[in-house]
């Protein structure tokens, strides 16, 4: 069944139809929340809250890209959470979970068939990228997460961030420039092929 029909059914109160949409977007929503919040538990809460909010406000969706509309709810929820964290910093700033393990544990990695070396390399890459993303202001981070990490096109990303296209372009360029500097400083965490190429960084 196509997305438009599912949305229409969900707007009529059909929770099962909405849950099929949830199934299609939950990985994307969770990844965006995780890259913005840099905390798996907070990302989980933000994703769940975003789906609840999306269902309750589905009558406000007037067509266009549902993905962009949903991601706007996710990013707004993440901004709220980041502001809450700034007001009440209770969590450790170290990138680790409650057991003291690095949060980029292999458990959630997508490809279970890869070799230990490949896995280690991916964990290192993910950590390096996340550290550099964390150094950006939230709106710059959101621009680069949506376009470069999640592969949204400019129009969808601008709609998800509720900003004009020109603002998105400008923020994306700045974010890429800052990430480039940051990644250069974390060269030891980059995959070998990028380290070899990093002479140019």
């Amino acid at each position, binding site marked *: 069944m196509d997305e438009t029909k599912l949305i229409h059914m*969900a*707007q*009529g*109160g059909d*929770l099962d139809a*909405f*849950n099929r949409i*949830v*199934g299609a977007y*939950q*990985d994307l*929503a*969770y*990844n965006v929340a*995780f*890259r913005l919040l840099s905390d*798996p538990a907070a990302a*989980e809460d933000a*994703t*769940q809250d975003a*789906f*609840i909010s999306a*269902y*309750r406000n*589905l*009558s406000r969706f007037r067509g266009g890209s549902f993905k962009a509309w949903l991601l706007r709810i996710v990013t*707004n929820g993440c901004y*709220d959470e980041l502001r809450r964290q700034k007001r009440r910093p209770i969590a450790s700033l170290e990138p680790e979970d409650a057991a003291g393990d690095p949060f980029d544990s292999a458990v*959630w*990695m*997508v490809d279970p068939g890869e070799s230990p070396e490949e896995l280690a390399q*991916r964990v290192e*890459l*993910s950590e390096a*990228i996340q550290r550099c993303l964390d150094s950006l202001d939230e709106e710059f981070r959101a621009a*680069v997460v949506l*376009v*470069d*990490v999640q*592969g949204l096109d*400019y129009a969808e990303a601008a709609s998800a961030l*509720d900003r004009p296209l020109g603002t998105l*372009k*400008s923020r*994306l*360029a*700045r974010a*890429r*420039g*800052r*990430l*480039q*500097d940051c*990644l*250069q400083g974390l060269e030891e965490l980059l*995959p070998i092929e*990028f380290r070899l*190429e990093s002479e*140019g*960084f």
Partner: protein
Amino acid sequence: MNFSLPQPDWELLSAYMDHQMDERQERAIEARLAEEASLQQALARLQRTRALLRRAPQRRAPRSFVLHPEMVASKRAPGFRWPFSLSTVSAVATILFALVLLSDFALYGVPLALLRGAPAPAAEALEEPMALQAPAEADAGEEALEPPRESPEGTPLPSEDEELQLFAAQEEAQDLAEEASREMQAEGPDFQAILRWAEIGLGALAIVTGLEAGRRKRARN
């Protein structure tokens, strides 16, 4: 950015890399790239950064986020929506509040909501005849002691009989006013009270809905 390249050039390169330019802009930047080595280097670095970001591992959702009825039961069904937004209600309440306030000023010269001890119309109606009656009685007492008077122009004032008739007519009018006020109290609407409560209610509604609409807007943003 640790090497010198003006911000507009970064933006141009970033947009060029993502094919977010029109043909004319593309030709212009390509002409510059052919000439400027620093621009070529910067483009190469940007391309590597983007390639690295695109390789950022994607995570699988740690659990299912499907909704259960109890998660969404506390709010209304998604299909339902109030016909007016909160900000519209706030705007209408503010306008009505201003109109009621203006009518107060026009009728009474002061907002009724500020007159906490303002007497109800029925009480005023009952007090009024007494107030009218008292000077009339005082006048009658004084007249009994004084000789008949003349107006400054020499026109004779009404005789005692005529004054009695006038007094009787006044009393009759007061009786009618009292009766009318009692009827108003029993049947008719208390106009001042309605106006006063409308003023308080509309003012409170305008403030509460305005604050809530602002809060929701901030929450959405």
